[in-house]
């Protein structure tokens, strides 16, 4: 294998979105770029993984940063080594679980000995026991096929008995309390009545079943709720085995994002010609949760007029309001300085339903969003409507992990050197805090500037303050949250119970290239307040069901984690004028703010150059067979750019020529 070249204009460490965009922009203007990553995949925290890989991605050390060989690297007298990576940046709340049985054959009761099934069922029940208090509302580990009834009864009896034996000292009282609470809630609470009632009914069903299975200790029921539900179910049984067999068809985003089809980011993709490296899919509908059910948000003109959820008068009011907002200027809202967007709408005497649609969906806001931000968001939303499909949004095929790779591709096409899976150990700085280079294995590689993902920042250069996190959940489900006549990728915008935060939820199916047929991927992202699982519990409980016979989807696999949000505060502290730290993913729905950050970093390093000008089309590159020069001539479509373009290309060749031998 070749060894890496050792001298560059710019070293970019990490292949997240912002790093990749800066890399592409620098290569594009002819800078010699080394783009290096300690991981063996592109995208860092912006990557997508198949099912097999995502389970291991956080379990191994988060990078292969190490010291081997670095002591052999000679430094100048005034130089020092800083270990790459810091203690501040950490992924937390990681919790992965299957909610189906392990093997296909576990479902095939006719081929099985009772004992095997019972063991498999016991596994499931053990999982429930671990959280007996939650058992009533817990998402269900599914499904033992119950064709042969006597067999099922037997299995139940065995499994339950074993469960009971195992849990003699289990919190029986707590389990009982949970039931009582559920009942009380059903009576007391008026708000999520439907939800609670469903839970309540489910609990009752279980009682009946349990009696049939001749089980005396009713208190124990809660410990085995899920088992009971699943054992009685008859529906297409997914198993861990059958899902894992198709592992490679999954593209699970660590950072799922949609793109405004006429937002800054998409404009840049198109204008820079990077768009050709990726494919997209329309977000077909936006859903919100209102009055106990999921409703498509009427957002486009035709949606508004055809929506059964808005009456004729409301249709007119909504259309009028949207066009008022669209044509408005900042001073139209001067009296709402310091007030929320919701207050503005309330003063317009809109119905609560309309306010709900506008605040949480069209304005992508919550109850606390300021009026000016709300208006700004509405304008942004409307500006991207009517471009592609029924909503303003598109999603990248095969998941969001494709996007950083598109930028890397452009960087490579323009001469960027790519090296993944590198043994990065130290950054080298001089006494004046100038970045001089880095150490990878036994190699010292130098460059004039450093751009690096925050996760690689040395401890000496980060400020220890409290970190914010984004709570994430990824779910594999067996049906859509809202079945439709046509397959649609959905964006679900759900306010929290108190309206203070908005949870971003994306549901995609096999047509988006993110999962096998007949399965769905649901991504949830919300601000972390307690833990990933707790923060998302309300949404999980609302959208999904434990009951296989329910119209709501069942969760087959779940994965919770929380990633640091390094955007809201500056966590770096350093005096290095040639080091630039890229924040990780933010909590936005889209990439517009992130790409702005990339552009800003680029401007700081190369203030006189354009950020990602249009790249020539492949057929504009002409290969000349000039025996001495063998220069590629780039014919730029914009005639004015022609001389400049040729100059850049030549400059690059000087720096990148490598002799064959």
């Amino acid at each position, binding site marked *: 294998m070749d060894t890496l070249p050792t001298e560059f204009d710019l070293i970019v460490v990490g292949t997240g979105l912002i790093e990749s965009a800066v890399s592409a922009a620098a290569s594009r203007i002819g800078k010699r770029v080394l783009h290096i990553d300690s991981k063996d995949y592109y995208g860092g925290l912006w990557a997508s993984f198949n099912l097999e890989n995502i389970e291991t991605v956080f379990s191994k050390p988060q990078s292969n940063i190490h010291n081997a060989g670095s002591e052999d690297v000679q430094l100048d007298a005034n130089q020092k080594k800083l270990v790459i990576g810091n203690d501040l940046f950490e992924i937390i709340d990681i919790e992965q679980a299957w909610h189906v049985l392990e093997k296909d054959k576990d479902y095939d009761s006719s081929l099985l000995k009772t004992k095997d099934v019972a063991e498999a069922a016991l596994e499931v029940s053990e999982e429930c026991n671990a959280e007996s208090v939650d058992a009533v509302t817990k998402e269900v580990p599914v499904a033992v096929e119950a064709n042969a009834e006597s067999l099922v009864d037997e299995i139940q009896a065995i499994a339950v008995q074993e469960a009971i034996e195992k849990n003699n000292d289990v919190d029986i009282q707590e389990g009982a309390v949970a039931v009582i609470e559920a009942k009380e809630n059903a009576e007391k609470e008026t708000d999520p009545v439907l939800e609670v009632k469903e839970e309540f009914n489910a609990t009752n069903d279980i009682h009946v079943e349990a009696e049939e299975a001749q089980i005396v200790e009713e208190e124990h029921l809660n410990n085995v709720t899920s088992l009971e539900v699943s054992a009685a179910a008859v529906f297409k049984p997914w198993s861990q085995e059958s899902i894992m067999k198709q592992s490679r068809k999954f593209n699970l985003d660590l950072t799922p994002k949609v793109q405004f089809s006429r937002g800054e980011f998409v404009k840049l993709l198109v204008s820079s010609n990077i768009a050709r490296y990726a494919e997209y899919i329309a977000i077909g509908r936006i859903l919100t949760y209102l009055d106990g059910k999921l409703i498509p948000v009427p957002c486009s003109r035709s949606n508004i007029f055809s929506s059964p959820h808005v009456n004729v008068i409301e249709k007119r009011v909504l259309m009028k309001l949207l066009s008022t907002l669209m044509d408005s200027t900042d001073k139209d809202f001067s009296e709402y300085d310091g007030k929320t967007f919701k207050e503005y709408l309330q003063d317009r005497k809109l119905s609560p339903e309309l306010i709900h649609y506008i605040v949480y969906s069209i304005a992508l806001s919550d109850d606390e969003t300021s009026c000016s931000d709300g208006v700004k968001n509405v304008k942004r939303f409307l500006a991207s409507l009517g471009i592609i499909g029924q909503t303003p949004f*598109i999603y990248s095929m095969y998941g969001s992990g494709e996007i950083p790779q598109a930028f890397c591709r452009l960087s490579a096409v323009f001469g960027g050197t790519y090296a993944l899976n590198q043994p990065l150990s130290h950054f080298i700085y001089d006494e004046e805090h100038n970045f001089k280079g880095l150490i990878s294995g036994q190699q010292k590689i130098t460059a004039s500037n450093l751009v690096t993902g925050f996760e690689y920042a040395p401890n000496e250069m980060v400020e220890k303050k409290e970190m914010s996190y984004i709570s994430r959940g990824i779910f594999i489900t067996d049906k859509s949250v809202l079945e439709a006549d046509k397959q649609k990728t959905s964006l679900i915008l759900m306010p929290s119970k108190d309206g203070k935060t908005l949870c971003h939820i994306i549901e995609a199916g096999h047509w988006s290239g993110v999962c096998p047929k007949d399965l769905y991927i649901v991504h949830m992202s919300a601000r972390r307040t307690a833990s990933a699982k707790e923060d998302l519990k309300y949404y999980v409980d609302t959208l999904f069901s434990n009951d296989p016979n329910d119209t709501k989807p069942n969760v087959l696999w779940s994965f919770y984690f929380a990633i640091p949000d390094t955007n809201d505060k500056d966590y770096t502290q350093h005096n290095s004028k040639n080091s630039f730290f890229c924040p990780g993913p933010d909590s936005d729905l889209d990439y517009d703010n992130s790409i702005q950050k990339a552009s800003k970093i680029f401007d700081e390093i190369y203030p006189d150059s354009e950020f990602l000008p249009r790249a020539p089309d492949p057929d504009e590159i002409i290969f000349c067979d000039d025996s001495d020069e063998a220069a590629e001539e780039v014919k730029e479509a914009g005639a004015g750019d022609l001389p400049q373009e040729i100059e850049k290309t030549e400059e*690059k060749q000087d720096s990148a020529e490598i002799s064959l031998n």
Partner: protein
Amino acid sequence: MASNKKILLKVVILGDSGVGKTSLMNQYITKKFSNQYKATIGADFLTKELIVDDRAVTMQIWDTAGQERFQSLGVAFYRGADCCVLVFDVTAPNTFKSLDSWRDEFLIQASPREPENFPFVLLGNKVDLEPRGISTKRAQQWCQSKNNIPYFETSAKEALNVEQAFQCIARNALSQQNQNDDLYNEFPDQIKLSQPSKSSGSGDSCAC
């Protein structure tokens, strides 16, 4: 899928650095050859319109853009490939030895539906150069062991067998795509972004 629909074939070229991937592409598309080696720059993908079995197709040939040099080709590169061209240098045995790992890498990353039937084509390039390191027979044996991959000995420099090889590549890519389309149309709603003015509808009609 309707046969009058414009057919776009994606072909990826893989092989060690310096075996002549970019030169082969250039020779095929532009009929030009440069003797001076430089790590691939500016080579992205090249497009050629051609007729295969009486059908007009557009073949997009994707270069590695140099990302193979340090084993850093991302999965996005492989997406949706209809044919994979493997290239080695007949004067450099180590580039022949790498073929297995390139083939494996492709099958893992692209994960085609039927890996055993996915069309590969092997090109032994630089037959104009001496001394020969890998015999024709040895290369053919390898191809036989991999479910009879077609094999061509080429010289990008002398334009030897290049046209023939790419004809074969196009034909195999087309048959691969036909097979897939007959089975089911996997991604009907896919959108390509080009000029902002001519956005393509995704089946949903524009709303406002």
